[in-house]
């Protein structure tokens, strides 16, 4: 998908900011928040300038026990079509089950059984999408008791068996290191980093020894250090800042993109 450069998550609240920021290489839009037939004008402006837009799904639940919903896949496909996207991204997560919605991305049990189900789910998704799919590692507050594989091993197997691309979220790796004691650098070592489509960077807040990946604060140095580590192992096609609420000024966001570029250049 070529060189995307440094980007930012497009959100309606910061649409004009995203248009004004210098050197934006690409943006992401939350797929569930747009109608392909009625795209926000700001996204059309960015597309008109040739800025790539990646539909980023949060509701598919490809890590769930049910086969992916054709309507949700159709929506992702329509978003990719309307936006001229070259890739669609989602998460290695489940979001519903037993008739209940989690309203958030939850980690999957990393067993061989679950892997076989999710391999099939990913293949179903890939067959429905007009462009490649990338899956993101998630932030977790808990692990499953019967995990047989690490998240990096699990994603590596998915890549090998389905050809799915990776969206590596270094803030999520940091979150899991703080919350679950999982070594983020070991995860980078184990991931097939040459299959990385792009990277997420975000900030959060620590409370009582737990890191909450809120996307509402400046990414801590530890997260940027992980970005540097990743860039030492591969040259990711793109790196994107996620900021979801409590939006700061344009100047602050520009400064954060500068910090990201700095971390990439230190590799």
């Amino acid at each position: 998908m070529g060189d995307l450069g440094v980007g930012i998550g497009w959100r309606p609240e910061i649409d004009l900011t995203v248009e004004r920021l210098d050197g934006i290489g690409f943006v992401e839009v939350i797929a569930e928040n747009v109608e392909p037939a009625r795209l926000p004008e700001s996204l059309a402006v960015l597309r008109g300038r040739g800025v790539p837009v990646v539909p980023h799904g949060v509701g598919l639940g490809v890590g769930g026990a049910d086969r992916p919903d054709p309507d949700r896949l159709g929506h992702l496909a329509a978003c990719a079509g309307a936006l001229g996207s070259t890739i669609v991204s989602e998460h290695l997560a489940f979001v519903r089950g037993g008739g209940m919605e989690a309203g958030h991305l939850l980690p999957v049990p990393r067993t061989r059984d679950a892997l076989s189900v999710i391999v099939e789910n990913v293949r179903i998704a890939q067959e429905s999408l007009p462009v490649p799919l990338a899956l993101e590692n998630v932030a977790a507050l808990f692990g499953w008791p019967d995990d047989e594989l690490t998240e990096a091993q699990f994603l590596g197997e998915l890549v090998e068996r389905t050809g799915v691309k990776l969206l590596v979220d270094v803030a999520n790796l940091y979150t899991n290191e703080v919350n679950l004691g999982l070594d983020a650098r070991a995860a980078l070592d184990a991931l097939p980093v040459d299959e990385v489509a792009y990277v997420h960077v975000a900030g959060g807040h620590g409370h009582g020894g737990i890191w909450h990946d809120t996307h509402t604060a400046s990414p801590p140095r530890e997260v940027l250090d992980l970005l540097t580590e990743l860039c030492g192992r591969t040259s990711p096609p793109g790196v994107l800042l996620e900021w979801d609420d409590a939006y700061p000024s344009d100047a602050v966001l520009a400064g954060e993109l500068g910090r990201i570029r700095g971390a990439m250049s230190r590799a």
Partner: protein
Amino acid sequence: MPERTGDDARASLAAGQAQLLAALVAGGPVPEGFDAERVRVQARSLVAKRSGSVARVAPALARRLGAEFGRLFAEYAATRPKPGEGSRADAAAFADWLAARDAGGI
């Protein structure tokens, strides 16, 4: 464990995920083997995210409840999963729950 495929694997994944979700969003027991405290932290975090979404789609309701909003929403959400239709349906169900509560029905 050797890898099973097909319906057996789906059924066992479905059962595990449904049990965990019941603990996270419907007030069910924490399934065996999980860190109970962390599951509670996750459950609180899901309610916080959900209440933030409801406050965004129903700002008048959030203003009316003021400082009580968070506590009342947590009480409502403790045993009621988020409706599949999304935050507007959640806000409507919360408003109904409040009305029933005020009428002495709860």
